[in-house]
């Protein structure tokens, strides 16, 4: 079986960018969350989770994102999401009523810029 989701990392302007691809559900959400947490050093300016290439996200994924946010907030770090306004991610967050709670921007660059504000 090919893996459900792919994860890669980049550092731009001191911000860790975690790029996700594919589908996130109960089978991989917490593992992905843990993998991302492990890659954010305490001196990073913040974390951007790039979801532009994710085409499925459900409540398990939302839960993992919230947990990630909590862990980073404990260290004084912020998290921003990147996804298109009309993507499945936007739909899921809207259905779950959390579209504004987790800050987001349509692009990675936009999300990085938001972190600086």
């Amino acid at each position, binding site marked *: *079986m090919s893996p*459900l989701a792919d994860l890669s990392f980049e550092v731009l302007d001191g911000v860790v960018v975690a790029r996700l691809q594919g589908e996130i559900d*109960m089978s991989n959400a917490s593992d992905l969350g843990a993998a991302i947490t492990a890659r954010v050093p305490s001196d990073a300016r913040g974390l951007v989770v790039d979801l532009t290439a994710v085409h499925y996200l459900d*409540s398990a994924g939302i839960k993992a994102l919230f947990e990630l946010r909590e862990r980073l907030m404990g260290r004084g770090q912020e998290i921003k999401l990147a996804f298109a306004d009309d993507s499945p991610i936007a739909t899921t967050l809207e*259905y779950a009523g959390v579209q504004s709670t987790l800050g987001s921007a349509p692009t990675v660059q936009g999300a990085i810029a938001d972190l600086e504000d």
Partner: protein
Amino acid sequence: MASEDAPQLISIPGPGQEFLGTGDPLTLEETPGQLEHIYRLADPALSELALEPLLDELLARAKDILRVDTVAILLLDENGNELVARAAKGLEEEVERGVRIPVGEGFAGRIAAGRRPIYIADVHHADILNPILRMKGVRSLLGVPLLVEGSALGVLHVGTVTPREFTNADAALLQLVAAQAAPAIDRARLFEALDREHRSAVALQRSLLPDRLPDLVGIDCATRYLPARAEVGGDWYDVIDLPGGHVGLAIGDVAGHGLRAAALMGQLRAGLRAYALDGHSPADTLKRLDRMLQTISGRGMATAGYAVVDPASGTMRYASAGHPPPIVVRAGREAHLLEVKAAPPLGSLPFAAFHETQERLAPGDTILLYTDGLIERRREPLTAGLERLRALAATRATAEQLCQRVVEQLLPPGGGDDDIAVVALRVVPVEAAMRVRFAADPRVLSQMRRMLSRWLREHGAQPDEIAAMTLACGEACGNAIEHAYAPGVAYFELEATHANGLVTLRVRDTGRWRAPRGANRGRGLKIIAAGVDELDLHTTEAGTEVVMRRRLGAPK
């Protein structure tokens, strides 16, 4: 003692007194007794025997005719440095104890090195390495080389426990025995070496081919692989589980046979799979494979075909590199050859270009890939075999039945000279109602989503409806997984029905639905509510059932 009357025999009377012969051929006296001996030793019936019985029979006759107490055959080992006892009469211990004599040393060693007969009148006075000869009390020895095309592959010697003067005639008869034995031994060794190579090639080939087909949603897949009888070839097949629920089907045929072809096949199979998993199109995949093959030194050539099938839409894209065309079977009604744009085999032309053909497979249709071993027959044009295959394939059958049928009907009696590989993929017709039992494991969720979205699509749902309902169902199934419990493995069931534009999804499990606890459970319910028109929950002693309904084509 050396005798002036027998100049042709090389005699070793004692250490330091070695005589090298003149090399004149030995002659036989044609007396009636001798003739009879010759017939016995040159008996054509002997050539019918396999190696072991042949040696056994020859040695027995030689021992009898020459009136000796021991007869033995030693053969050169693989390195050609030592002689190893192989068969013996009266000297069986020599064989059992694995006595080894270095070439050039001792009695047998000098025969092999010099490629000439040697006669030892009395072993007490000679340089004999072999402890067994001494042990047995052998006194006189006569030995000749076993020659094939001028090189020695071993030694044949006879001995007596009482001193004996071997004559020219004795030596000639012994050489007659050697002349029978040597070619037979040579042939047998050749077959042994070929067989070893064949067996390791077969082992390599088996390890390179997939041993389990992936579990794929919405399709029915079967394969067959029949290696060639005599020598391994380089045929391969592959079924690749691609992202997004697509399936890759590969078929290939490396030119040539043996270990080399099998090894190259392994490289090509792995290369194609890697390019396919990277998401390259069929044409691009073959192009990359072709370029890769060009970089392998001593490269061969291979034909190949690669298809990517999307079971959800039934779309198939196919590219070929000189490979016979796949057969498209329309739900048991008819079968035809896929029209393929011609392209050269991999590795045959620099900068070759590969093209794609597209075809739609409706539910129930099958695509069949194969290698030419299935259709090639001697003294028959390839098109005849192809037509035979096509006609056979036009049948209502599952992928498994189709593979079985074509192989049974087309395999030549006694097996083929060429490998045969077959892959069949059938798009499974969508049921009016879908009812599936899943193990209560988070890993089944992606499979559930694929099956449900395909089912919804076939029932006319729009993409946004499919996304919303799949998401809702995903939440319900996730909940079932979380609180499912049972002795042993826990399961949940998904049932999807469609009547007059109303879709009903039921998720049944054996657990108890827990009221939303923590923020996240509430989110799950909200997601379901947003995706469907109605949500009902029944909890009984047996378990929980979640029922979700949505009207298709109505705004939400």
